[in-house]
């Protein structure tokens, strides 16, 4: 079985984010980046299939030079090889542009399963997975919380709302966009990290996959980003821990709960 895992590198969870000078995105200088959390779960799900038998796991990402580090991490966790696509014209790419690039990459090989994260922790769009499936003309399921591969198909559980799960059977090839918590993500072992250095990491330009800037021109553009206007918000208490605790207890009493 051949598996493609699509990864995105996003600002680190604990990075202090500030709005950049042109007001349309965050300042990326001087912050740390990491693999999008949802994508870690997607990669882990693929690696479990590899552990269970014959599977080749290929990771692909789009981004500037800094993403190489995330690809090495993925190789260190156990992926077999990596594909890195970049072109300056992708700097403002929208989800459909990204999906077109990933589709061009995927079409060069025949993957049985494509794994993505449900969404990314930066833009939270949750669009690339279903778009990529459409462009590859394969079925997809989003918010996947369980997979069970058997006889050329996969039984999938999708998370709906309020604790309801939808169970369905999907033929391969297919695309699965996974929800966080589907598995327990492994860390790259020291041995894995050493081996990763020797694993293939292909760098591709758009022209290498038959695309150009015009083919991936964005339809979605960001006018501006800003800190959400403060509503009434919380009455923020100050003072020592004991002083704050006393005020809180006063309120809890007033609510009739003490």
């Amino acid at each position, binding site marked *: 079985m051949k598996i493609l895992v699509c990864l995105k590198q996003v600002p680190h969870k604990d990075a202090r*984010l500030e709005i950049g000078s042109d007001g349309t995105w965050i300042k990326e200088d001087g912050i740390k980046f990491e693999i999008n959390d949802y994508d870690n779960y997607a990669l882990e799900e693929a690696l479990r299939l590899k552990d269970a038998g014959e599977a080749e796991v290929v990771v692909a990402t789009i981004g500037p030079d800094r993403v190489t580090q995330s690809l090495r991490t993925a190789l260190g966790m156990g992926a077999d090889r990596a594909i890195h696509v970049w072109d300056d014209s992708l700097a403002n790419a929208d989800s459909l542009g990204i999906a077109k690039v990933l589709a061009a990459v995927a079409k060069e090989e025949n993957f049985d399963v494509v794994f993505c994260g449900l969404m990314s922790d930066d833009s939270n769009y949750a*669009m690339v997975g279903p778009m990529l499936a459409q462009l590859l003309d394969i079925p997809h399921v989003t918010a996947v919380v369980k997979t069970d591969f058997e006889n050329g198909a996969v039984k999938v559980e999708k998370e709906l709302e*309020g*604790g309801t799960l939808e169970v369905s059977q999907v033929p391969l090839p297919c695309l699965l966009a996974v929800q966080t*918590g589907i598995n327990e993500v492994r860390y790259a072992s020291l041995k894995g990290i050493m081996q990763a250095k020797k694993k293939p990491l292909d760098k591709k330009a758009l022209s290498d996959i038959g695309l150009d800037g015009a083919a991936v021109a964005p339809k979605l553009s960001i*006018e501006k980003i800003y800190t959400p206007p403060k509503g009434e918000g*919380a009455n923020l208490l100050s003072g020592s821990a004991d002083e*704050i605790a006393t005020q809180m207890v006063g309120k809890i009493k007033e609510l009739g709960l003490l």
Partner: protein
Amino acid sequence: MPKTLIVGEIQGGSLRESTLELVALARGLGGDVVSVLLGSGIGGTAEELSNKGGGKVLAADHAGLEQYSADGYASVIRQAIEQESPDLILIGNTPSGWDVAPKLAAALDAGIITDVFKIEEAGGDLLFTRRLFNGKFDGQFRVAGTPKIATVQPGAINAYEGSDAGSVEALSAAPESRTKFLELRTAAAGGHDLTKAEIIVSGGRGLGKPENFEAVLKPLVEALGAQMGASRPVVDAGWLPHEYQVGSSGQVVQPKLYIAVGISGAIQHLVGMKNSNFIIAINKDPDAPIFEVADMGAAVDLFELVPALAKAVAAAKG
């Protein structure tokens, strides 16, 4: 003024409230409104939508549409788009909406934006507003070309309350799906029902490690006679079982008092607790979105405040 196609949604046999929110949004933009509704045996619901502002409702009534499928729904919605040539297509950002909308956009090579909470006209164009970075920022967006597709955050807009006589028209559908629906099932509920709790104290990633739920949070939970809840990252990391999760994919709660400890307030958590009667938030980041829904808060180190609060509660009880 855009002509808008609303993709209605049926949930548990009834018209989903979010559909009437789409109606309000579309009507607010001032253009023509038409709707498409998909399902099986949906005559009455289509009638209802047509009388509640949905305009002309294209009813795709077919046994193969009883359960959502990306293939089946996308093909029928495309039919409606081809028939009506809307400028704007509105879909609820629900588990089926977020699943089908990007697929449609790719099939039509159309511009799309997801999970918006506001759409306004500006200089003959539409401006879409949504959150970014899990609520840390808001962004305003433009979508080029026609049609434009937007999914809308449920609950963000008040539902349309007018009654207008529309019409219902059958849309003949022949849905096919490569995915085979097997069943709906309820995630193991466990014994931890938070929906009836008077007081809930929930912990998030800010607690740092699973042991701190026992060592730091539990004394406060016990002093208050509360139930313990958790945010999604805590459950995803396996620190607490799913039955503790408060949020759109966990339990939606409405206690008299909700105390959020070390929770930044991702949208999916806020949806699950923002209707609590009184909310106290404790988080070291004063810009955390949780403070927007909280009534009272403290942007301090939880490891100092929570033990002090547990002690003060115990003392107040005497």
